[in-house]
Structure formats: structure tokens, C-alpha cells
């Protein structure tokens, strides 16, 4: 096992009869925070069950924290904290005893479990509300209690399934900050499955993107986005001439009407663009760096490719709907 990775799979496949839920996944998830992304039915839940050692894989191999997913499921679940997406709390119990019980189910001594339950509930911000029955909790408090249940034994890896789902702005902010704090201060690894790209982007350094049971993309978010850094310009007049000039100068240009995106490959690119515009007599009304958001990447993968992404050039191969501007008639040449 390579200690560099918290989760590692080699050609991992899972089939239910003829339906292939996971197909030859080769995933390496480093320590730290990782977002698990994918549309409904992409195989996220199956993947989570697989790495928790709950279902037998059809072929391939996988290790979580160095434990084999085939044979060491119980050990994996002892060292991993899982926060389910759906309600997983008994509404008739109070928060403190619910979290304590979750610790006891891991094999914690009842006294130790109670002490840890207090600590973890304090950490997730439940405070004195811990003595209230869970049925009276808000959605945010329930999410926080589920997180407390997951981290009571201070696991090395926390798997959080839609942790900020259904939360109001304040609770969402708190949840995201809490997860970040666990990674930064607690030095724990977090795997976060979410549809809220913004939250994933704020918590995670890496992403794993699944689509139809296959690996669509994996790696550092920054790396994926950095490849696609472009300069976006809004042109008034002679856009075609400018495009041709930029192409002849060796730039990679994508154009949608009067909006162009030029791949940023040097620090002096802005000067060169302005010079080219001056030479052909075109006005640059707006010039700024364009960096694809995680959501852009996600949508592009899902809509354009689906899987087997080689680089993020592939992801953004099709023109993205660009903002159109109204230019004076005399300048509408290009």
C-alpha cells in the first residue's frame, strides 16, 4: 500500500447481474479533502459502500487506509467515520445519547463515549441543545449531530455524504467551515460527496468525478482549473481580423460572436492582445482572466464527454455560451 493515498483502487468493478455499477475504477485519493462528484446514478453510493467494505466487489482491488476492502471491511469501518446523506438519527433520543450510542457501536467504553460525545457535539456547534430530543432539532442541527456521530472516534477519514444539503446559509457556512477545520486543524482526511460545487470547492483540494460508473476525472481542483486559464476579451469591431491576427501569432483562440477566449500561456499575453487589437484597429472593451469554476468543469464533463477525460482542454472543447454585447452598428463587422 502506498501511504500517500487514503483510498486507492485498482481496476475496481462492481456489477449487479448484468448492470455494471462501477467499471474498472483506478482511483488514488491523497490525504486531505476530496470531493466525490457525479450525477444521480453515477455510482457514488456504490463506491461509498464499496470503500466501507459493505459490498463485495466483482473484480479488482481496493485499499482504504491500507486495509483491503475485500477482507477488512470491519477494520475499515472502525477507522472511518461515515456521515449519511439521509436522516440517521432516532428522533426520540436526545442528541448527547445518540452520539454516545454511535460511539458505543464502535466499541467505545460508555463513559469514554459520553465524554467524547460532549466534545464532538461542542465541536460541531450543538452546545447546550445536546440535551434536547432530536425530533425538535432543525435540519442544520441534525446534520451537525450526524457529523458528531461520525467523528466521535476521531477517525482518520471522514466520509460525508451531502453534508450541507438542505441547510440555510448560516448552517451551511458553519458546516463547510467545520469540515475545513477538521482537515486543516485536525489533519484528518475528508471525502465529501456533494452536489453543491461551491461547498466542495471551499473544502476540498481534490475531486473524483464519476459518471455512469466510470471515472470521469480525478486530481487537484487547482490543476484541473489551471489548465483552462484563459483571457476573455470583449471586442468592438473587426473581431474577425483580430481573431485571425491572434491565430497567426500562434495563440489558441475560441470565439463566440464578439467574445473571445485566448489560452493564457505567458505573462505578457495581455500586452500582446492589446497590441494585436491596436494593429488591426479593434477595440477591446473588456479584458479579464477567465477561470473555469468547478461547476463549469462538472457541467462540461457531464454534457460533452461523460468520461475518459484526458485533460481539461477536452472538458471545455465546445464553446461555452458567452455573454453577448450590443455594439454600435458601424462596429459590427466581426
Amino acid at each position: 500500500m502506498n501511504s500517500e493515498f487514503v483510498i486507492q483502487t485498482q481496476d475496481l468493478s462492481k456489477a449487479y447481474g448484468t448492470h455494471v455499477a462501477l467499471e474498472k475504477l483506478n482511483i488514488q485519493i491523497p490525504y486531505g479533502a476530496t470531493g466525490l462528484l457525479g450525477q444521480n446514478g453515477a455510482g457514488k453510493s456504490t463506491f461509498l459502500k464499496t470503500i466501507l467494505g459493505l459490498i463485495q466487489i466483482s473484480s479488482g482491488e481496493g485499499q482504504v487506509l491500507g486495509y483491503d476492502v475485500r477482507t477488512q471491511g470491519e477494520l475499515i469501518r472502525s477507522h472511518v467515520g461515515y456521515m449519511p446523506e439521509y436522516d440517521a438519527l432516532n428522533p426520540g433520543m436526545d442528541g448527547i445519547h445518540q452520539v454516545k450510542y454511535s460511539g458505543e457501536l464502535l466499541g467505545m467504553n460508555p463513559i469514554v463515549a459520553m465524554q467524547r460525545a460532549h466534545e464532538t457535539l461542542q465541536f460541531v456547534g450543538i452546545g447546550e441543545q445536546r440535551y434536547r430530543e432530536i425530533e425538535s432539532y432543525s435540519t442544520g442541527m441534525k446534520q451537525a449531530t450526524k457529523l458528531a456521530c461520525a467523528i466521535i472516534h476521531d477517525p482518520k477519514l471522514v466520509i460525508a455524504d451531502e453534508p450541507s444539503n438542505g441547510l440555510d446559509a448560516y448552517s451551511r457556512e458553519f458546516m463547510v467551515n467545520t469540515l475545513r477545520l477538521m482537515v486543516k486543524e485536525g489533519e484528518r482526511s475528508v471525502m465529501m460527496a456533494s452536489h453543491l460545487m461551491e461547498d466542495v470547492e471551499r473544502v476540498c483540494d481534490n475531486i473524483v468525478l464519476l459518471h455512469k460508473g466510470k471515472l470521469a476525472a480525478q486530481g487537484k481542483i487547482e490543476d484541473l482549473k489551471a489548465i483552462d486559464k484563459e483571457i476573455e476579451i470583449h471586442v468592438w469591431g473587426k473581431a474577425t481580423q483580430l481573431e485571425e491576427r491572434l491565430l497567426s501569432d500562434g495563440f489558441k483562440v475560441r470565439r463566440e460572436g464578439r467574445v473571445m477566449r485566448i489560452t493564457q500561456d505567458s505573462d505578457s499575453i495581455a500586452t500582446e492582445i492589446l497590441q494585436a487589437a491596436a494593429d488591426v484597429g479593434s477595440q477591446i472593451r473588456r479584458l479579464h482572466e477567465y477561470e473555469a469554476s468547478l461547476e463549469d468543469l462538472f457541467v462540461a464533463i457531464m454534457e460533452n464527454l461523460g468520461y475518459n477525460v484526458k485533460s481539461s482542454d477536452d472538458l471545455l472543447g465546445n464553446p461555452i455560451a458567452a455573454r453577448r454585447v450590443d455594439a454600435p452598428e458601424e462596429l459590427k463587422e466581426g
Partner: protein
Amino acid sequence: MARDDARAPVTGKTRLQAAWGSNTGDEVEDIGMAALPKTGEIFNQDYKPWTGTLNPRWMRNWAILRHHLFGVFRKGYRPWGMPTRIFLVIVFIASLTDAALTLLSGILGSPELHQLWGVNRNNLYGHNLGFFPRNILYYPIVTALLVGGVISEDRHHGTSALYFSRPISRFDYTAMKFISVALIQSLIILGSYILFYFSEIIAMGRGWAWIVDTFPIFVAGLIAGILLIFTYTSLGLAMSSISRGRFFPGIGLLAFLFGSKTIAAIISGLFERDILYLLSPYDCLAHVGQALVGTQLSYTQYSWTWSLVSLVLMNGAALYVLASRVSSMEVTRE
């Protein structure tokens, strides 16, 4: 800044800063104070690691058992409903009727009363397997109330994820749920049975000779009682495992127990065919119990082993349903 605010937290930091601070004196004072918590804010989110060790499997199983068992008596464990708790107390007291009357007959020195209520073959059988009132008003309803939500509510509330994301196997989960419910019934049925037997020893001053004579009958009655608890529990938990609510498993169990007996009785009355009693769990239990304890058999034309085989088949089918349903319980989604 609220340095002079009476509600400000007393940290001593400001005073220390004034005395030992390394500020140049040129800074705006507010900047120096900015690191202090806001007035009245005492929440400090710190991640506290835990370095303890988790206990092995038996401790986790004991936690499940304790959670269900202690929930009958105390807060902080499984919240059994108040009607259930009240009914358990009523049935326990009602089940002690024979023990109380045995004590009374001893105190009064009334041989007639003792003959009616004291320990003998028929009364030992009747304590566990007598139809009215025990197996129509007491024990089936106790089982129905207990099994109602034991598994179905884990589906309903999603608390199955709490178990299966921990190092708890499906077998341990099912077994401990089974044992928990059976143990609560045992406290009532077998507990009162044992008290009944000992009340005879105390009230009537029985010696070793009597104990040696009656102990095999007592053990036979105990085995019959265990068989009754096992059968009711397995049927009830099978019902619970196929449901998401509390009502259906309870009412389903009662319908099956009483319905099968009623149909057998109707067929017997109309067509003089007794064989359908084999479909009735209670009739089979009674038949086997009568054979074990050595009282008069209800069905002399059929061997009691038929009833035993029927019970084995019923329990086998119920446990199969239970096992297959529990094995299909989801972790990531329910």
C-alpha cells in the same frame, strides 16, 4: 471595542498586552483588540483528537443489547413508547398472579386454593402456554409491541446506517436485536415463571425431595417458554424487517397468531379436520409444550413431532425472511 463592557469575557489578555505587549504604540488600539472574541461569545471551535482504543466485537454487541434492554427502564437508551412500558409492567404483574396466589394459599394454609394455583404439571404448563389469558391478552401483545419498530424503525429513521457504517456485521445486528427483544419477553414470561416456582418453595416450605421431583417438569416448562419466546420473536422480527412502520409488524403478528388459530378452529368445527392446527404457531407450541411438560395432549391423533416440525419450518421461514431483509438494508440510502 468593549473593553469596559461588563459582559466582555475575562481573558486577561488586554492587561497582559498592556504590560508586556510588543506593540510599537503606533497601532490603532482597535487592531490590537481585534483578535479578542466578541462580547458574550464563548464558543471556540477546537478539534480535539482522541487517542483511545476501541473495544472488540463483544463490546459492540453488548452496546446494542444494553441500548434496547435498558431502554425499557431508563432514559438515554432506546426510547420505547410509554404505552409499551406501561403494558409491560401490567403484563408482568398479571403474570405473577399464580405466584401471588400460591403465596396466599401458603399464608392462609388453604389446600383448595393451593390445588387450584400451586405448582403442578398443569399450572407450570399453563403459566407459559395457557391460552387464556396469557396467550391471547398478554404475551402476543407484548411481542407485538416490542417487535413493532425494532427493525422497521431503523429503516424508517435511517438509523440502519448508524449500525452498518460501524464495524457491526448484519449477523450481529440481527442477533442482538433478536436477543434484546427475546430477553425483555423472558424477563416477563420466564421471570414470572421462575418466581412462581420459587414462591411454591417458599410458601409451602418445599424440600429437596420435592425440588428433585418437580425440577424436570419445571425445566420442561422453561424450554416450552423459550420455544414460545423464540417463535413469537422470529415471526415478529420477520414482520418488522419487511416494514417501515411500527403498526404493521405488530398487527401482522397478532393477525397471524390469532388468524391461523381461528381458521384452524373453524375448519375443525365445520369439517372435523384438525390437521390445520399445524398452521397455527400457538397450537403447535401448545402441542409441543404439552408433550414436554407431560400434560394432556390437545391432539392425540397426531404426534407432537409434527408440531415441532411445523414450528421448525415456521421459524426457518421467518428467520430466512429476516436475514434476507436485513442483508438488503441500505447504508447509503434507505
